[in-house]
């Protein structure tokens, strides 16, 4: 699924990321626990859905090689997070929807679970 489609489905907005037109997400993982994110072996085409918005979220994704992150529950990306994400060529999105609602919508639209 294209980034634009995800954003439209969850009533969200793109916060960070350029030239995302040709990028696709096929799988998702939802967690506020970064230790869980660090156990992901293959993060290719994977979207992280999280309500944890701090610099460690971005650092964790950098190490786990998660490129796409959707912040839920109206959590805001700070300038510092944005800079770190830009350095690591990441795509950040925000939505006011809850994690449960986002997961339900994306699952119903054929985004596969990681496990």
């Amino acid at each position, binding site marked *: 699924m294209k980034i634009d489609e995800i954003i439209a489905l969850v009533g969200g907005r793109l916060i960070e990321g350029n030239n995302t037109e040709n990028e696709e997400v096929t799988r998702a993982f939802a967690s506020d*626990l*970064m*230790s869980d994110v*660090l156990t992901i072996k293959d993060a290719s085409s994977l979207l992280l859905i999280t309500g944890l918005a*701090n*610099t*460690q979220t971005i650092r964790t994704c950098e190490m786990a090689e998660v490129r796409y992150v959707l912040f839920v529950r109206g959590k805001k990306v700070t300038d510092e997070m944005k800079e770190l994400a830009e350095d690591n060529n990441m795509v950040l999105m925000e939505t006011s929807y809850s994690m449960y609602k986002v997961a339900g919508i994306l699952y119903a639209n054929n985004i596969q679970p990681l496990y």
Partner: protein
Amino acid sequence: MLLEYQVNGGDFTNAGSVSSNVKKMMRQLGVDSSVVKRTVVALYEAEVNIVAHAYRGVITVDLQPDKIYIKLADEGPGIADISQAMQEGYSTASVAVREMGFGAGMGLPNIKANSDILNVNSVVGKGTTVEITNNF
């Protein structure tokens, strides 16, 4: 190539900057991407452990043509029972650490899973030394 970094306990703003530097360096040297990932995940968990539990620490990275050796030596409370700390789910992390998305008792087990050789030594009241070796 030998590099040394200072890490301060409680400094969550910069937690991960050492791991980030090491990741960039390994990539520039053309190390296999799966080894880079395993190494930086192990290093990042260990770096966060210093920030979360210790007063300060020194991370020494020795990058050789066929392997990377990382030593994280901290001054802190130490670990009373290392085998217990290696169990998934055991944690002594503070509320502040948990709010950062850590402290679920998965750090040391995940470091072990991502290291070829792992040594953990600790003296209660003095500090902990974690040594990680990954072969290329």
